[in-house]
């Protein structure tokens, strides 16, 4: 227990700079949406109090529904493919020798370390028609006729964004899972193995349940990260407006607010979006279940 009692002035001196910056620039930005969404707030001029008018507009906004579904699609694929793949890789790493482990850790974390701009520009170059590497590879193995300029087609454009997100996230999530797995004491699995449990049984009945907190944590990160996705779509489509089907939620909100300068509406969209994110986190946490893990 800390035993040094400090006078108020010392404490303030130590904590104030950090607190100020965080409060103003970190928490502060949450306030305008909550307040101004109830007003007519266009071009930064405060108009009349409009109550829930902006919110009614949100619920009638079909395009908003489309972009929300896009983000949910992204989340779905992350949970269906991204997370299990990361987890499987984490397990495989524990079974592999040190050289392979080193190699894969470095290789898979590398995408995460790169800037979103580099990643998405590189991918959009690879997917270029005619000279892009993806098309060449497809032609080389005989499926060249299946190639499409996916990025420029409204229906498939967002799927490319999904791929770039997952590509960057796999290594990152894998390392988190790996840290959780490493923390499990060896004797838990030893005793299971001695009792005759197969590998699958070990993973599903011992490892996974013990990882609940790690799973929850990774899920929260995945949800807040993917719901906020805006850069990937922006860079891949390079500013071309190909319709809401290709947009992510945040990009849509941002675009809507700036194109009409109706920030009151943009704020209402923001609040609804934040509430939805929060609900998703709660639901996923409930699904994973309550368990405080402590190793004796």
């Amino acid at each position, binding site marked *: 227990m800390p035993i040094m009692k400090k006078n108020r002035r010392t404490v303030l001196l130590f904590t104030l700079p950090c607190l100020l910056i965080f409060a103003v620039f970190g928490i502060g930005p949450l306030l305008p949406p909550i307040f101004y969404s109830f007003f007519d707030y266009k071009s930064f001029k405060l108009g009349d109090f409009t109550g829930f008018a902006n919110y009614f507009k949100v619920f009638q906004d079909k395009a908003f529904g489309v972009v929300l579904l896009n983000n949910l699609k992204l989340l779905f694929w992350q949970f269906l493919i991204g997370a299990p793949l990361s987890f499987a890789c984490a397990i495989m790493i524990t079974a592999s020798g040190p050289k392979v482990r080193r190699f894969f850790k*470095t290789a898979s974390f590398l995408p995460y370390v790169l800037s979103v701009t580099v990643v998405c520009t590189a991918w959009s170059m690879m997917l270029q028609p005619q000279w892009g590497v993806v098309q060449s590879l497809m032609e080389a193995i005989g499926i060249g006729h299946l190639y499409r300029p996916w990025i420029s087609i409204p229906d498939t454009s967002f799927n490319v964004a999904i791929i770039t997100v997952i590509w960057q996230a796999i*290594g990152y999530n894998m390392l988190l899972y790996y840290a959780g797995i490493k923390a499990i004491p060896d004797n838990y699995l030893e005793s299971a193995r001695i009792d005759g449990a197969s590998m699958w049984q070990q993973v599903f009945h011992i490892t996974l349940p013990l990882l609940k907190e790690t799973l929850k944590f990774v899920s929260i990160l995945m949800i807040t990260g993917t719901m906020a996705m805006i850069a990937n779509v922006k860079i891949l489509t390079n500013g071309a407006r190909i319709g809401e089907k290709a947009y992510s939620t945040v990009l849509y909100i941002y675009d809507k607010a700036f194109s009409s300068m109706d920030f009151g509406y943009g704020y209402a969209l923001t609040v609804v979006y934040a509430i939805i994110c929060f609900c998703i986190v709660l639901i996923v946490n409930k699904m994973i279940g309550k368990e405080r893990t402590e190793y004796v």
Partner: protein
Amino acid sequence: MRFNSKTFKWISSAFLIVLGTGFLFPLLWLFLTSFKGNSEIYSDPLGLPDVWLFENYVNAFTKFDFMKYFFNSVVYAGCGTLLVLICVTLFTYATARMDFKGADKLQKFLQFGLVIPGGSTLLGIYTILLKMGLKNTYPGLILVYVAHGIPIAAVIMYGFFRSLPFSMEEAAALDGAGTFTTFFKVILPMVTPALTTVAVTTALTMWNEYTLASILLDSNKLKSLPIGIQSFMTSRGGDWGGMAAALLLACIPTLVLYLCFSEQLENALVANSGMK
């Protein structure tokens, strides 16, 4: 944790090697492309370049405003990281090791920043900076970056500070040291590993950041590297070799940081998860 199956070990290793190479493939392709001229890129996308065109790299400096964007990114990431280090170290020293009411609450307040949904602050940040006259300025973006970097830095530093024995301050006090002397001469030297971890993580994040910079920076002379690169695409989209070269050049600082400090980066990840 051991799975005692040799077959599994072989299959895993094979799979991981293939997947790992798959991860590296886009970078390898970029590397090859960056040395080719356009015609070769079109005709032979997968092969080694016939002629290694170093001029693509030279062009990156002369035709793209590479150095300007690079310098800006250094300013943003450098100042931002420094500020985060100073503010957070002071703050978490207080919450972790000083006895005062509300220490817990203050720390939790900062950590709350980790769960705020990313996109919900964009419009708010724009409005606040606009009203403060900080939009499209160096300090404006830096302060926003600092606010975003504070939560994760606080988690790492707090954990580390807590792990030091409290007898340190006792001993220092017995020797007659005041608060500041204790902090600077006794505690600080002991937390350098954590400081490195925070510095590397924060700098990396700020260097790579795109969204906030694209919203808050209008004028070309302030643009950071990620934003600048994107404008290369639009202004000189036809020069693909040059584009690849510029992308790789932009990667070099992050790659260097990563290869030198991969251990710290991993620690940052783990610290984050341990705390929840």
